[in-house]
């Protein structure tokens, strides 16, 4: 569901941005830093975004449950979409 995906991904982007800024000194080029940020976004970011959603908007799960979505459904869909986006971005970054 789009609303869930958008909320979780906003948290994911914020977490990715913070971790990338915190680790910016570890990379000697912009592309290496960007590669790392996209990797965090695609692999760990969604999980952390879900944790943030659970903390701030947990009650909203009942809206999705009433519409037939289980928590696992929602998390897997959000993670799958973000992973797919990350893979595409990683391929593009490696080409340049």
């Amino acid at each position: 569901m789009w609303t869930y995906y958008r909320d979780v991904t906003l948290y994911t982007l914020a977490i990715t941005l913070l971790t990338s800024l915190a680790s910016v000194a570890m990379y000697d080029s912009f592309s290496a830093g960007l590669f790392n940020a996209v990797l965090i976004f695609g692999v760990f970011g969604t999980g952390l975004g879900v944790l943030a959603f659970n903390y701030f908007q947990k009650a909203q799960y009942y809206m999705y449950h009433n519409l037939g979505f289980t928590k696992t459904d929602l998390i897997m869909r959000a993670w799958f979409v973000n992973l797919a986006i990350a893979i595409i971005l990683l391929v593009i970054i490696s080409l340049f």
Partner: protein
Amino acid sequence: MKKVLQLRHVQKRFGKKEVLKNVSFNVAQGEILSVFGRNGSGKSTLLKILFGTLKATKIHLEINGKHIPPKKVIPNQLIGYLPQDNFLPRHLKVRDVIPLFHPDGDDQDLIFRAPFVERIATRKIGTLSLGELRYFELLLVAHLNHPFLLLDEPFSMIEPLYKEVIKEFLLSLTETSSAQVSPKKGILLTDHYYRDVLDISDRNLVLVDGVSQTATSVEDLKRMGYLK
């Protein structure tokens, strides 16, 4: 065909504390079953178990004699649930939330035409009073196509005018119209506003020491220790 939900021998233990020891009941489409109990008696726990968001220590759930694993309740949209906590996104407007629940235009019209909805349609969820929000959440969930509906304190924080509208609405959900083969809903309801509940319920249960017992009158509620 009218559906009947049967719950048998529900048990729930939190650590050493056994909250539900033996809860059993039937509820059919067209019927309102109320569940009373003192604070901490396990009413909300029971509803969460039925909805499939809390695992029971022991449960046997059937609909029309067919065994239903609790994890199938949500994906198969067998039961709708109005929880105690408000669950709508606060940043969205009322008119934008309705299509999330009801993509079909006719269903949306049903909500927009419901009493009091037009005057709150342009407001954000976060600006609604608790009573307005509770009423709006009930409308959204009750108009979904689940054959059964669980309501955890639907009269809580509701002003008297809304209460009467809600009672009429819940009764309408259990009636069979000429266009339908069976009534829309079987309803399981719990609330401490016992007079409002008794006004609309067909049968009543009281949870006493984790066991469900049948009550038919206010005197029974007193005898079972729910009222003085």
